[in-house]
């Protein structure tokens, strides 16, 4: 854990953690008995679901949840569906959880082979949207926002996390192939790679231009990359796709490359596992693998009141159960000892100015937090730049009052979104 420097005046740096050179092979997590998939679609009722319990699926098969849905998901394993049930995530997000009992020697679906032989955007979107790294292929479609640049991000967006950087070091051929495929299906888009400044060497043959970004937090976050590297400022409340960029994590590009070259949907996700001492190791697990299987394979035991965090120490999200599965965008899994879990307090802001000094986007955090604490989210958004926040977590990290600023900001944004949705519904 990074602590305050003795000389508090010095500007703190939060360097990302690069993977070792040469990169060590990831630890392969054996296929678990059951896997579960979270599909971001509310579960209405059993009768509305097309997929029934007991049905068999093939590995790599495109499964539709509801009848008539264009969307669906790809089963990472062959097996039998054992449960389809509702699941509520953070901030009221509603999912449908699909549990599949895996059959290791089950059949492989061969429908993707045709797509791989002749890749099209629609075909890739259908089969690869849920592959490791969750490539936002749907953004490249005509109907979506105007995208002119595909950014291949070799940057990780949190400390201790090295998944993207690891892919850029160890899966160069897959990434290269992925770039070629993307060029083929989205010929008119400009493809640019971004890697940490100290690792910019050696990507001359990749088939696209590579640019360098600072290797310290929060320079790896998409909004910061757009601003620092591309000189495009994402307006408050908008996303990178609104300024014409689609962010593909390096792992997603590698997965596209590998899937197409092997004519089989790649479903092994790379995850940086961070243990209680902060030591990291790379593991490879099938999407849907429960965290308990990863912890067991890494020899990590969880005690009472410890924390299990999806993501890194600055921006991750804690989960309450080790049954939670690996998802397409699960880049890191962090285990924190109960003694190290920082507790927040109900102290008010003392106006020390530490957050103002550290905020990478100049949000007036000291004023913002006063309005957020009072529940005045609209004023917070209109006058104190709530929507400019890029959610890097640094303000809460330095707050001597231990105010959960970051959580207040997320809550404020969520509440405003909810109000907006309600108003739209009433109109």
């Amino acid at each position, binding site marked *: *854990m*990074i*602590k305050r420097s003795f*000389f*508090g*005046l010095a500007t703190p740096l939060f360097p990302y953690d690069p993977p070792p050179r040469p990169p060590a092979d990831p630890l392969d997590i054996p296929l678990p008995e059951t896997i579960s998939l979270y599909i971001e679609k509310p579960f209405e009722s059993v009768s509305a679901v097309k997929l029934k319990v007991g049905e068999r699926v093939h590995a790599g098969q495109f499964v539709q949840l509801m009848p008539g849905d264009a969307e669906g998901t790809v089963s990472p394993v062959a097996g039998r569906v054992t449960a389809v049930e509702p699941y509520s995530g953070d901030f009221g997000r509603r999912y449908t959880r699909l549990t599949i009992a895996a059959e290791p020697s089950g059949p492989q679906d061969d429908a993707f082979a045709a797509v791989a032989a002749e890749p099209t955007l629609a075909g890739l979107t259908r089969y690869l949207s849920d592959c490791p790294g969750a490539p936002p292929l749907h953004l490249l479609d005509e109907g979506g926002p105007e995208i002119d640049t595909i950014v291949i991000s070799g940057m990780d967006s949190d*400390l201790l996390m090295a998944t993207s950087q690891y892919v850029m070091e160890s899966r160069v051929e897959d990434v290269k192939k992925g770039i070629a495929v993307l060029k083929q299906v989205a010929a008119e888009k400009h493809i640019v790679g971004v890697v940490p400044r100290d690792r910019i060497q050696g990507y001359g043959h990749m088939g696209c231009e590579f640019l360098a970004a600072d290797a310290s937090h929060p320079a790896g976050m998409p*909004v910061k990359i757009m*601003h620092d590297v591309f000189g495009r*400022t*994402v*307006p*408050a*409340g*908008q996303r990178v796709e609104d300024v014409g960029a689609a962010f593909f994590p390096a792992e997603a590009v590698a997965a596209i490359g590998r899937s197409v070259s092997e004519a089989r949907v790649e479903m092994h996700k790379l995850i940086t596992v961070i243990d209680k001492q902060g030591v990291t190791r790379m593991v490879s697990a099938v999407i849907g693998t429960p965290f308990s299987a990863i912890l067991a394979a890494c020899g990590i035991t*969880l*005690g009472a*009141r*410890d*924390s299990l*965090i999806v*993501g890194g*120490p*600055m*921006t*991750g*999200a*804690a989960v*309450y*159960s*080790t049954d939670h599965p690996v998802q397409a965008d699960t880049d890191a899994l962090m285990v*924190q000892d*109960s003694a190290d*879990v*920082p*507790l*927040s307090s109900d*102290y*008010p*802001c*003392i*106006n*020390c*100015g530490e957050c*103002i000094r550290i905020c990478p*986007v*100049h949000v007036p955090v000291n004023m913002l937090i006063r309005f957020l604490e009072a529940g005045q989210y609209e004023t917070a958004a209109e006058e104190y*730049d709530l929507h*400019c926040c*890029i959610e890097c977590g*640094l303000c*809460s*990290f*330095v707050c*001597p*009052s*231990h105010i959960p600023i*970051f*959580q207040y900001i*997320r809550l404020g944004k969520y509440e405003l979104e909810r109000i907006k949705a309600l108003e739209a519904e009433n109109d």
Partner: protein
Amino acid sequence: MINQNKLIVSHAPFWHNGSGIAERSYNVMGAALLAVLAGFMRYGMPAVGVVCLSVSMAMFWELAYTRLTKMPDTIGDGNAAMFGLVLAMMLPATTPWWIVVIGTFLAIIIGRQIYGGIGSNAFHPAVLATAILIISWKNHFNFDGAYVAYNFDFLSRYPLGMLKNFGPRGIAHYDLMDLFLGRQVGGIGSGCGLALVLGGIYLMLRGYIRWEVSVSFLVGVFLTAQIFNMVNPERFAGPLFHILTGYTLLAAFFLITEDSSSPVNPLPMVIYGLGGGLLVVLIRNIGAHTDGTLYAVLTMNLVNPLLDKIRPKALGKVA
């Protein structure tokens, strides 16, 4: 699932840099201690008595307030103790006990708690309290009168009083180095420039006070005094005299830098400091008061919210 351990589900970030309010308070007190010790050596046991009473009474008032209003006890954060100490630094060593009791009440209850407690005070509590005390019991703050019982081996007239009454001729006998080393009468912890500067540098380096405010305050005092002095050296003292006397150095590192009553954005910090420095010299040179520092600080506290509206444009801010 049933036999699973209960996990803590907290929110990001899962790291904290370990800073805290108690740490800030105790570091400010530690930095102030040097100047307080210089005061103890100069004025002896009466000074020790005033400081101890002030710190303990400040803590008492806070505890009494939080208990009465059924709020959580915050006495452990050292903030009240810190204000008690800073208040004592401004008082003469011969201050009667009841003034200390009233002063700490004014600082903690009037200056801080009724505004909403820590972080909500619009004015520096100790400065507000001292200003009220000076207006109410002027005679007890007459530094010439306060130390008649003492035998000093230096000029025992209050330098700023001499300047007010006799102009630059009246202060011809003061040696600047003597003033810097604390060979002058004044408040318990405001006399020894060397100790205050060392404490201030410590606080600035460790980031417990905002250096921009301190430095620009001193620059403000220096520049304004220099301009006055250049215009009429017969009437106005030089800049170093102003910096080394009265509450100037105490204000630069312990009063004007108080967190909640000073700005946090870059430009406002500089304007705030410069404005404070300007006011100090204006009040001393052409105002009614001998030492204008307290009023300068209070006035700047007043404009702080307005100043702090000048802030850098947030990245991505639309219009």
